[in-house]
């Protein structure tokens, strides 16, 4: 067995062998599984994420403002994103909204989701959040001795909990199919 070729980016053994047009030339590229998406070579235009960021609006910002701009949920910064091409958590997308928008332009066919929407899940999550909100209001009303409000919250809660139970029963039944 011949010694495996090294990855063109790091020095791990190459597992992916690409033939791609880069600047009008056919290039053979060897990569390990970790590297291609970071280098952007698997992408049709041959652009790299790093390149996009270097040219995009994110890049015009000062490095110092970048590093203070960190995700409140996971502490991720745009500097780290530029290094890895990946985000830290789902909330990062909201945090770095201004950087992401222009970046998506060159990357995808459109900039808004046109695919499947997990409606059952969204409904469930919304109901649960509503229940949490009502429970808090109920506690407050009880402490503050606003008993009429408390009774109303209690009724609403009861109703919501029943719908939620109905939902999960329905999904159990679906799972059995």
């Amino acid at each position, binding site marked *: 067995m011949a010694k495996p070729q090294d990855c063109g980016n790091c020095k791990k053994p190459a597992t992916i062998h690409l033939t791609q047009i880069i600047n009008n030339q056919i290039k053979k590229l060897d990569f390990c599984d970790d590297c291609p998406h970071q280098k952007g070579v698997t992408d049709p235009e041959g652009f790299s994420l790093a390149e996009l960021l270097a040219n995009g609006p994110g890049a015009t910002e000062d490095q110092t403002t970048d590093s203070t701009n960190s995700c409140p949920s996971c502490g991720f910064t745009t500097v780290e994103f530029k290094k890895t091409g990946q985000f830290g958590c789902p909330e990062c997308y909201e945090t770095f909204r201004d950087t992401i928008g222009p970046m998506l332009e060159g990357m995808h066919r459109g900039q808004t989701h046109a695919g499947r929407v997990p409606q059952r899940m969204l409904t469930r999550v919304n109901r649960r959040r509503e229940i949490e909100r009502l429970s808090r209001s109920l506690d407050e009303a009880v402490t503050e001795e606003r008993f009429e409000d408390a009774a109303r919250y209690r009724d609403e809660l009861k109703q919501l909990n029943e719908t939620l139970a109905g939902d999960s029963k329905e999904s159990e039944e679906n*799972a059995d199919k």
Partner: protein
Amino acid sequence: MQIRPILEAETELTDRSHAPESVVLSTRVRLARNIDETPFPSRANKSQRREILARCQDAIAGLKMMQKGSVLEMQNLSDPEKQVLVERHLISRELSNDKGESGVIVSRDQSCAIMINEEDHLRIQVLRAGYNFKGAWKVIDRIDTGLEDKLDFAFSPEWGFLTACPTNLGTALRASVMLHLPGLVMASQMEKVVRAVNQMGIAVRGLYGEGTDASGSIFQISNQQTLGESEQDIIKRLTGVLDTVIEQEQNARQKLLENAAPKVLDKIGRAFGALQNGHLLSSAEAMNLLSLIRLGVDFGLLPENERRSVDKFFMTTQPGHIQIISQGDLENSDQRDVERARVLREHFRGLAPLDFDTLEKT
């Protein structure tokens, strides 16, 4: 040894009832999913990763289609075992390098593999033998919906399913097929094809082998864009491109037979001889020889059922498989090359000589 059942099981790819196709080896769809309000695997700490792993395993265990599947955690697998999983495309190279709190659940027929804590919390993959997006999609959609009832996925109405890397945003769908394209390779038309296909936002990769590009003339063609198009449109556009590539491959083969028959038949004949008599075969060389045999089956030189044997050998002659199946300490590659040649010799010696007359008849 945790993967013995995987090696011995009948699989979608090698044991399904209908005959393998001449150009398309297999179809795959992959969905990336992440759990809301939780750091992506690369950012999560050990205890968070452990929790994600357990939650996902629980959710997957409730899926009907994953019953009797194998639950594997990376930290419990040896290197050759991980290698076998990579060679079967059940896990990525990336996951195989991971030390802990990550794993894969593989369905009994190996048509479905769900990686946990790879780049995203979940990477769901469904495989179908041959050219079958409809079948693959139907299964993965059911799995996705089943998991959606148990896990809160990170989803934004604007950007769709949120993934660690923005290149997967939206549908987070990667649809691909593995194609056997010896005609286009021999006719030196692959570069032209790659260029045309890339312009459509579709990627071509050579797969298999160590060091040689596209050994075995096997290529994976997949969509690269995931946002701004529905799942159906992504598959439709990819299918359009694939139909053209398949047609070009058929044309290239026809032209080879018309204009360069002795050259092509000589290659196939020599490949058959090398497989019957070789004593040292590297995995890249074996792939190339097997590729020629598969073409030989398509030309009618060998019985149709040999296509299935070739497809099985494409997988089982990879280094990890050779090492594990032979149960020996084949630490060095020379020993593996001897063992690989032995396995192939054993099979191909039992076959009738190539039937070159069929070509003259047509």
